[in-house]
């Protein structure tokens, strides 16, 4: 299983390199989104837990997702990603993906899990399965929106998949800072997902070779 993760990470970095090399006229956006302060000291493992507070799902420690919304041409099949069920939590707990992405849900606990979602963006129910299940149960997420993952057996398990109709998205660090490079010039709307109830947006005009500073502010 570790193999898959490494593979995915390599692929991501490879794509980044390709993009870097392919376009020298790309614009850059960097800035911050308003996140609540991290309650815990610096986390070594980059691993989030979906928590709900006042009916709002977010991650602990808090991170946001920023993406550029607009009409972008299809870019072939997006890579296959994974959300692992291990130690009775989903990992990662928050995963932004591009529309059309296939996500596999490997079970790495020695227990049954049953991943399902009633979210309007994607309703599915993988049924109960053990780690030995082959092929690894997966779903294609072909509609933009927020999908809440649950396990029918373990009521505390939650994960959020943000299905984004854009190839340009990034996860902020726990202080809300983000940076996106090699973006096409033009007028777009920059969106920032803070939690399940709050998504901020700002119209932006990107110019090639320039870096745009954006600071999202909460209401």
């Amino acid at each position: 299983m570790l193999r898959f993760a490494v593979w995915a990470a390599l692929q991501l970095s490879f794509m980044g390199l390709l993009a870097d090399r392919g376009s020298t006229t790309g614009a850059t956006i960097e800035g911050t989104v308003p996140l609540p302060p991290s309650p815990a000291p610096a986390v070594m493992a980059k691993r989030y837990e979906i928590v709900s507070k006042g009916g709002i799902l977010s991650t602990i420690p808090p991170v946001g997702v920023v993406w550029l919304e607009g009409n972008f041409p299809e870019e072939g099949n997006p890579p296959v990603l994974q959300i692992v069920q291990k130690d009775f939590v989903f990992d990662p707990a928050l995963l932004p993906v591009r529309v059309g992405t296939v996500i596999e849900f490997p079970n790495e606990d020695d227990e049954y899990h049953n991943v399902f979602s009633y979210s309007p963006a994607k309703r599915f129910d993988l049924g109960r399965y053990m780690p030995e299940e082959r092929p690894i149960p997966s779903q294609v997420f072909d509609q933009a929106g927020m999908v809440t993952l649950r396990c029918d057996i373990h009521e505390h398990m939650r994960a959020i998949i943000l299905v984004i109709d854009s190839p340009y998205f990034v996860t902020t660090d726990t202080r809300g800072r983000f940076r996106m490079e090699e973006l096409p010039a033009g007028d777009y709307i920059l969106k920032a997902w803070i939690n399940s109830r709050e998504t901020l947006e700002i119209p932006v005009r990107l110019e090639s070779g320039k870096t745009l500073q954006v600071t999202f502010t909460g209401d």
Partner: protein
Amino acid sequence: MPKPGGNVSGFRGRLFLIIVLVVGLLAIIGAALAQRHLSAASEEEFANSVQQHVEASLEAHQVRQEMLVGICADLARQPRIHAALEDDALDLLYPSAANELSPLMNGGQAQENEAVIRAGFYRFLDMRGKVIPPVQPRLHGLLPAGWEGFLELPGLPENPQTGIAFLPPADGAGEVVEIIAVPVISTETFSPIAALVVGFPLQKTAAAPGHFFGVWSKGSSLTRIPGNLSRPEIENRIASMISRGGEGDSGILRTGRGDFRLVVTPLNPDSAYPPAYGYFLSSMEPLQERLARLRRQVLFGALVVIVIGLAAAHLVARNMSRPVENLALASEEEYHQRLRAELALDATSQELERAARFSADASHQLKTPVAVMRAGLEELAVDRELPERLRPEVAALIGQTGRLTRVIEDLLLLSRLDAGRLAVEMQPVDLGLVIDSLLDDLSILPQNEQHPVEVEGEGNFWVRGNRGYTSLILQSLLENATKYNRKGGRIRISLDREGSFVACRIGNNGKAISPGMQARIFERFHRGATGENVPGYGLGLNLARELARLHGGRLELVESREDWTEFVLLLQAERPPEEEGNPWT
């Protein structure tokens, strides 16, 4: 005199009766006390058994209710239900619930040794407490139109709520259902976002015979009324018991169909649903039968006690009355003896009276001829023509008629004494004076030789008596002393006081009276053996003694030895009459 023997059986009967009454009374009191004690104990036992039954039933109901609440709370935590409610997928709510609740609806939750738990229907309530209508009600338990309103609550509850309602017939017969409403607590906000309401048919409590369990809510019994009992009667009674605010209240319901112990107890206290009460009817027939049996037993026991008491009373009465009976028997014998004695006495006294009357009559009849004879002789004695040689003869005859007259008078006096007819007028008599006058008379008696007389005693000797009779007694004694004296012998008279008596002793120098004779000298017509030539007729001493007794005194022979015989006359002393004076002095 009452006859004693007749009351002995009466005594035994009375004794027997009293013992029987006491034993009977004790038996009755004992029986009454035992009956009361045992009745109270039985009633308490019955009440306890009913209470135990009620508590057991309630506990069973509570355990079941808690289990149902637990099952429902588990269901309300199911992720799919949460997903449907939280992830904006209400359309999936009932289908998901159908998945989750299908085992419960089909009774599949039952495990070994467990009663089948089967839900009849379920619904969800929204944030306002209103029923979220299912798309396909048939999948979630059909409810009659409009009845869903019963499931609704004023708002979402924080805690499980229970209620009991009568579900009218939709498909089949109506039934009483137990309703459990559990909140669906959001895993995001931790506050209720919906409520799951599940209806379970009310479990039929396995009632023991004679016991009935029912449910009452909103003024009427939701369950069937047992037997032929009147519904309004029971419902009104329960309503009144509840309005009194009695929790776990109990009372006795008397109906035309028998008496019942009624226990009412709340089934869903503090619930948002209308309050429902369980009521337990326990027929008091077993208790009443038992009490009747008890009464019979106690009665029988009392009867046995009374019978034993009768026997014991009989024995005791017999034993106790035996000495009394013996006594009575003895007294009866005594009575008869006395009766005989009295009869004999009566006969004797009649005989005596007859004899006395005869003596009196005879004396009376004799007196006249003797007087006539004496008059004739006296006339003859003074007749000049009577030859001189006959004169002493006539004089002797006259003397004899005098003696005859005295004998007759003595006999008459004695017969009066014997018949108790002699009324004596008592007065103070100077005994000394009587003696003096007697001595005077004695000295002029011509025919007797003279005996010197000594009189001793100083002072007055007054006695209570009749002068004539006292004189008669002393005359008798003096004549006696004269008659039986030896030739030239002396007579001594002494007067003395002896206590309240005056003792007059008269002694003479006569021959000794033999001891055998001494006892007989006072008998009538007895004369001293020595004196055939002694004049007298043997009445003197007897008459003297009778007269002494009449005076309340006595006459006794003091001593009789050679040449001295002495009598004593004791008469009651009397004070001399001072006012009247003594005509003799």
